[in-house]
């Protein structure tokens, strides 16, 4: 869920979740009875689904793998929906407001090639091995140590992310609607626990598909109405150039030849190799949270088609995320009719209420001196019209959505948070039960016993998430580490799995050592820059690099370092016999023959179409 962290959250200097905890003087919107009815219906529906599916999740295979009965469409929508949480929606809309269309890289080059690679190349190995999880694959390929290391890291990450999601939702509901934290947390935790503990992965997948429909139904109107008001594409471009005095907001690649030439401070090599390979392939092909959805497909062809179907929708997501951010640059207005200018998260936090940092931070913004003076004269809190980048999506919703429609938009955000939590706890439950509890605590239980453990771990996982969320809330410094967990862990895991899957010479000890040292190397790089920000110039290879560049280059170095360790150690240790690697490694695995299908049902046809659209979009917005 928290996989590809929004730029404005990942870039530590710009702000992080705890900053959100400083809330506006007044909520952005007030819900009427029409809106409350829409939200209540959603909660009723998810609980109905949970109770309905309870009777269909009796065995371990049904509870943890949804019975491996999902069609390609359901698995594909769930796959892409697992990365379409509200934190991502709001964060990337804010990034688009800040960086322009550059933020789209995280949806296109940062997702599409990896999704196609998963479907066409890697899925057969995951599927043929019949593993329950990604750590399970590591066990089959590299042995118990690698599995336990990956499982414990992943379980810890899932619990923390679930807590972050829960608090993020509470904070957003506080900012947007003025709801109390306790109310939001209790209601969401209760609903998620109920429907996932009852229906397992199947329930989580159903709700992800539901969330996907709600997000499009609730958020699609914002860009449509915004484009009408902005005067279409040409009107939007003209106004942005007039307001921002730059046309960089419309170019994906043109200004990435130099770090200093684009607002994100990244270089195209970092985007292609760091984001497009190390981070993207790491997330979309090895993060169990998303891979689990595809493993639930009912046959290999469906499992291969699912990421390809998902990639079509992934390419369309910028329409409801990036475009509202761009529209916010020209359409948002203060109550007096002047253009509203949003500020970075840390500026907003420093000025709500006023702190000594407020004045110097305000000077770095483009706010006029008169507005800055107005902000500083507020003694009790922020001006009601001072908002952060991350609020651009809710602000646009409030601008266009009246009663009923606003309820639908808010429901989409709630659904995004809840399905994110559900994804975290369902993946945690599977890894805890199959990769930690079963091999380390009780190897001889019955299937029904493991289902019981899975259900209990969901309840326990949610409770621990609440505790973890409170911990993160209380200690702002921890949040930086929580956000970094994903990027620290995923790149070494990618190198470990890719070499295990495509190089039969990779040995057990090499896999374990590569993963362990790769994680240590990645964490070391993170801590180095965290303690000495000037060292970013070494990690990202330029003194002009900005924090966003650190994430992509750190992932790239960690991936290469892990691969180097695995290569060197493998050359000095004894490889496993080829017979033991059947079903796990390319070249020694007879892939199952699939029945011939017409070209319009063939995964290669659709993948080809995705490639054509992907290339066309990148050229169009070059």
């Amino acid at each position, binding site marked *: 869920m928290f996989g590809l962290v929004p730029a404005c959250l990942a870039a530590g200097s710009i702000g992080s979740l705890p900053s959100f905890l400083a809330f506006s003087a007044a909520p952005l919107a007030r819900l009427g009875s029409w809106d409350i009815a829409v939200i209540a*219906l959603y909660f009723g529906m998810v609980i109905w689904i949970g109770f309905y599916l309870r009777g269909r999740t009796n065995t371990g295979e049904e509870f943890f793998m949804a019975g491996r009965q999902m069609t390609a469409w359901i698995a594909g929508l769930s796959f892409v929906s697992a990365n379409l949480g509200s934190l991502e929606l709001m964060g990337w809309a804010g990034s688009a407001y800040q960086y322009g269309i550059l933020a789209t890289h995280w949806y296109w080059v940062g997702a599409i090639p990896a999704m196609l690679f998963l479907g066409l190349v890697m899925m057969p190995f995951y599927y043929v091995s019949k593993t329950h999880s990604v750590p399970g694959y590591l066990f089959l390929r590299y042995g118990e140590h690698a599995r336990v290391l990956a499982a414990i890291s992943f379980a810890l990450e899932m619990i923390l992310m679930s807590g972050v999601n829960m608090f993020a939702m509470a904070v957003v509901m506080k900012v947007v609607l003025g709801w109390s934290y306790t109310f939001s947390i209790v209601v969401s935790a209760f609903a998620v626990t109920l429907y996932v503990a009852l229906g397992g992965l199947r329930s989580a997948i159903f709700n992800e598909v*539901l969330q996907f429909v709600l997000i499009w139904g609730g958020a699609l109107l914002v860009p449509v109405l915004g484009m009408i*008001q902005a005067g279409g594409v040409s009107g939007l471009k003209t106004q942005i150039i007039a307001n921002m005095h730059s046309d960089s907001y419309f170019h994906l690649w043109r200004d990435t030849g130099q770090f200093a030439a684009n607002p994100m401070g990244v270089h195209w090599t970092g985007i292609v190799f760091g984001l497009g390979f190390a981070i993207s392939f790491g997330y979309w092909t090895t993060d169990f949270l998303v891979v689990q959805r595809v493993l639930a497909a009912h046959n290999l062809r469906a499992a291969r088609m699912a990421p390809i179907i998902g990639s079509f929708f992934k390419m369309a997501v910028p329409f409801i995320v990036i475009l509202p951010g761009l529209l916010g640059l020209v359409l948002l207005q203060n109550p007096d009719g002047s253009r509203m200018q949003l500020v970075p998260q840390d500026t907003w936090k420093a000025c709500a209420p006023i702190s000594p940092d407020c004045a110097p931070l305000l000077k770095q913004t483009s706010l006029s001196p008169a507005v800055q003076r107005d902000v500083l004269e507020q003694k009790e809190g922020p001006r009601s019209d001072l908002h952060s980048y991350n609020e651009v999506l809710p602000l646009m919703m409030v601008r266009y959505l*009246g*009663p009923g429609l606003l309820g639908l938009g808010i429901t989409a955000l709630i659904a995004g948070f809840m399905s994110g939590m559900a994804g975290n706890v369902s993946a945690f439950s599977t890894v805890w039960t199959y990769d930690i509890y079963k091999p380390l605590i009780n190897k001889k239980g019955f299937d029904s016993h493991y289902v019981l453990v899975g259900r209990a771990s969901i309840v326990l996982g949610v409770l621990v998430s609440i505790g973890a969320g409170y911990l993160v809330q209380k200690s702002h410094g921890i949040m930086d580490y929580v956000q970094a967990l994903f990027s620290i862990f995923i790149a070494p895991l990618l190198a470990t799995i890719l070499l295990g899957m495509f190089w039969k010479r990779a040995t057990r000890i090499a896999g374990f050592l590569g993963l362990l040292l790769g994680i240590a190397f990645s964490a070391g790089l993170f801590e180095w820059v965290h303690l000495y920000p000037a060292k970013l110039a070494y990690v990202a290879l330029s003194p002009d690099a900005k924090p966003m560049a650190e994430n992509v280059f750190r992932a790239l170095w960690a991936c290469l370092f892990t691969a180097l360790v695995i290569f060197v150690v493998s050359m000095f240790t004894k490889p496993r016999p080829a017979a033991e690697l059947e079903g796990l490694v390319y070249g020694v695995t007879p892939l199952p023959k699939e029945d011939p299908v017409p070209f319009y049902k063939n995964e290669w046809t659709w993948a080809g179409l995705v490639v054509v659209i992907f290339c066309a979009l990148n050229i169009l917005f070059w």
Partner: protein
Amino acid sequence: MHGSGIPIWFFIGVLLVAYGAIIFCYGVYEWHSGIYPPLVQLTNLHTPVWWGGMLLALGVVYVVKFRPGRGGE
């Protein structure tokens, strides 16, 4: 979902019908009464009417096509 049981598309259809009906009814009321929310833009487009109507129509199609016992995905 593959196999028997109520497909997810039916649940989605039910929710879309309910949401479409609520939003469409509000839109008709708003248009009829001429009372619009003061801060909302482009109310002259009567968005709740056509968007609610679209959700309602889509929901009806899903409910009918994927109703329990009929089969399908």
